[in-house]
């Protein structure tokens, strides 16, 4: 029990160490409240930005923060709101809902933010949304979720700038089922996002009379897909929908390729992300079809995309922004646009503007649907290029189709319970 012998030898030094340790921890403990700021409302326009800076989506989140800062800088360079400058307060939510809720409380209660924007997971955004709605703060979510549109979670303070799984899968499904076979297999990551994606696909497929020949669920963060893939192979589908994300997507694609499945069927990954594709490499992804909210090549046709890319490139050694990064830019940008239009940061005034305005920040015109505040936006169907077709390391996708912004892509307000 006791460790007396430690204390008999070298009394002096141990005591000193203890003292130093105590002093050190006292200093650490004291640090935060020495600089405790007074509530500084009416000065800058503060936008809280909780994103998972650490954890598996860390690099994506840091890019979102960089892009959001571009929107802030743009607003400030234009003179702010009659001289009132905007400020971005980035916080690490660690991809955990509880942490995100605490951080949002901090942003609202301590920092006195005017708006909140951010999050990079379905569950985290719902937690942030609850905390913001309860306190009457506008929250603009920039990651995919179907649930946030539903009556249970929606409030008048809730806005959703990102696409949702329903529209993503719907757009891809439309393209794929129209142009290829009707025998469809699903590989689904067994959690909310995976199921929402699969549901979106099935709804899209009804119109074309698809036949679901296999539906295989795998646990989140699987390494080995060799038990799942043969079931799919045996069903001989024309199309395989990968309703998974991140490393699950990468690993399942890699293994499907080594099973020779790429030659047998069309691979569809509804959320085909730019950074994921670059990390995975051309050979793994080539020929995979998916959807995106943004691809930098849009700059050839869309002026706002060009402007956004140019600013981003200037600060990032010529690399173009990613799709999720662009969400950060748009999510914060649209809030500031609404502030300018309303002429104040008054919550109700800004909500009114957000509901009324049509905006084009980076991808063509968008607007928020009144009933659920979902951003109605164009969806781009893309295909991953072969190594041989790439002009440079950033040239990874080919845009196959553009589905213009339309409310038809969304679930009806009634079906959401609104």
């Amino acid at each position, binding site marked *: 029990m006791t460790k007396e012998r430690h204390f008999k030898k070298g009394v002096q030094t141990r005591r000193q160490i203890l003292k130093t340790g105590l002093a050190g921890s006292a200093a650490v403990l004291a640090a*935060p409240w020495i600089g405790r700021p007074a509530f500084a409302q009416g000065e800058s326009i503060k936008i809280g930005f909780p994103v998972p800076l650490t954890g598996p989506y860390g690099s994506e989140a*840091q890019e979102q923060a960089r892009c959001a800062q571009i929107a802030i800088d743009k607003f400030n360079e234009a003179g702010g709101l009659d001289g009132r400058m905007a400020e971005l307060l980035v916080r690490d939510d660690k991809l955990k809902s*509880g942490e995100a*809720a*605490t951080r949002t409380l901090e942003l609202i209660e301590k920092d006195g933010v005017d708006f909140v924007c951010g999050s990079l997971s379905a569950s985290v955004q719902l937690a942030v949304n*609850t905390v913001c709605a309860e306190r009457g703060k506008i929250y603009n979510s920039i990651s995919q979720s179907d649930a946030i549109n539903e009556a249970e979670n929606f409030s008048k303070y809730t806005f959703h700038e990102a696409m949702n799984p329903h529209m993503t899968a719907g757009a891809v499904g439309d393209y794929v089922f129209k142009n290829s076979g009707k025998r469809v297999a699903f590989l689904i990551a067994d959690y909310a996002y995976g199921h929402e994606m699969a549901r979106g696909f099935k709804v899209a497929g009804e119109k074309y009379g698809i036949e679901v020949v296999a539906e295989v669920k795998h646990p989140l963060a699987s390494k080995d897909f060799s038990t799942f893939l043969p079931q799919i192979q045996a069903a001989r589908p024309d199309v395989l929908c990968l309703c998974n994300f991140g490393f699950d997507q990468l690993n399942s694609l890699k293994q499907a390729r080594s099973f020779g499945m790429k030659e047998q069927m069309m691979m569809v990954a509804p959320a085909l992300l730019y950074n994921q594709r670059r990390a995975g490499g051309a050979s793994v992804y080539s020929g995979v079809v998916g959807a995106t909210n943004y691809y930098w090549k849009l700059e050839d046709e869309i002026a706002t995309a060009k402007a956004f890319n140019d600013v981003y490139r200037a600060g990032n050694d010529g690399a173009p922004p990613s799709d999720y990064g662009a969400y950060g830019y748009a999510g914060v940008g649209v809030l500031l646009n609404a502030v300018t239009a309303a002429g104040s940061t008054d919550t109700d005034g800004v909500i009114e503007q957000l509901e009324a305005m049509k905006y084009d920040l980076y991808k063509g015109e968008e607007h928020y649907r009144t009933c659920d505040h979902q951003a109605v936006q164009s969806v781009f169907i893309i295909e991953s290029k072969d190594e041989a077709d790439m002009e440079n390391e950033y040239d990874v996708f080919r845009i196959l189709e553009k589905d213009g912004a339309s409310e038809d892509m969304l679930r009806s307000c009634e079906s959401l319970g609104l």
Partner: protein
Amino acid sequence: MSDTAEPRPKAYWSRIVDAIARHRALAVLVVLLIFPFVLPYEALASNIVIFGLFALGFNLVFGYTGVLSFGHAAFFGVGAYGTGIAIVHLGLPWWVAMLIGVLAAGVTAMIMGALAIRTRGIYFAMVTLALAQCVYYIVYQMKGWSGGENGLNGVIVGQIDLGFASIDLLDPMQKYFFTLTFVALAIFIFSRILASGFGAVLEAVRENEDRARACGYDVRLTKWLAFVISGLFCGLAGALNAIHLSVVPIEILHYHMSGQVVMMALLGGMGTFFGPFAGAIVFLLLEDVVTTMTTHWQLILGLVFMACVLFFPRGVWGSVLQWVRR
């Protein structure tokens, strides 16, 4: 305090510590009362008292009975989910909901305890871990009730009308003192339990199980009771957490949470009264401050924990106690 030093000429500090030890519950309360005024923000203070209570409950099993449980997230989580579900789905008033949460955690502890208590040492840790994971998956799969992956959102209490006064839980300071009221009550009950004969038996079991049995105590029943009481305290912490955050995230049941509470108890000083709170303060405050400074917070926290294990083997508070009593 269990490990009081031999009577010897006492220094000034030692006398103060002894005074604190005599009125331990009161002393903890005084510290917690000034808490929200000195911490960076009130929500963090609420987090710390809630996790302090969680660690306090855990310490009954770990520090006082000498059994390492690795499944305490289950009680914390069930307390939170019980309260949350009662508010969101059943529309019950907050105090009924909290009662349901605490009792649900107690029942979970009864079942888990009955199954796990027959094992000892590392096997006990493994069995509790496994059972807690079962609870995790059960809740995860009850999507209709728990929200599954998305967690339970919208646990909103808002205003509390007491008849003579009303509490606005949207005001962070009022919410802190609302939380603290329950924590204070729990602290006094906890102190009373330790001071009772039962408390002495717990420590007897910790020090020497065979001797306790030889003295005629039912060791298994004692352990089981400690486990259940511990579960009730952790359930209360969970219930308060649900009301504090307005959401119940699924990760609350994850074994990381069980690990975190072990860490807090160790960091603060196992088997000491103030230890769990000291652990919660150091852990959460450090994490909060370092996270804001750098994205490499895990590295810094890891180093601090290593330093603590090396230089404060009895935990922060345990070391303070020993230092002043030398």
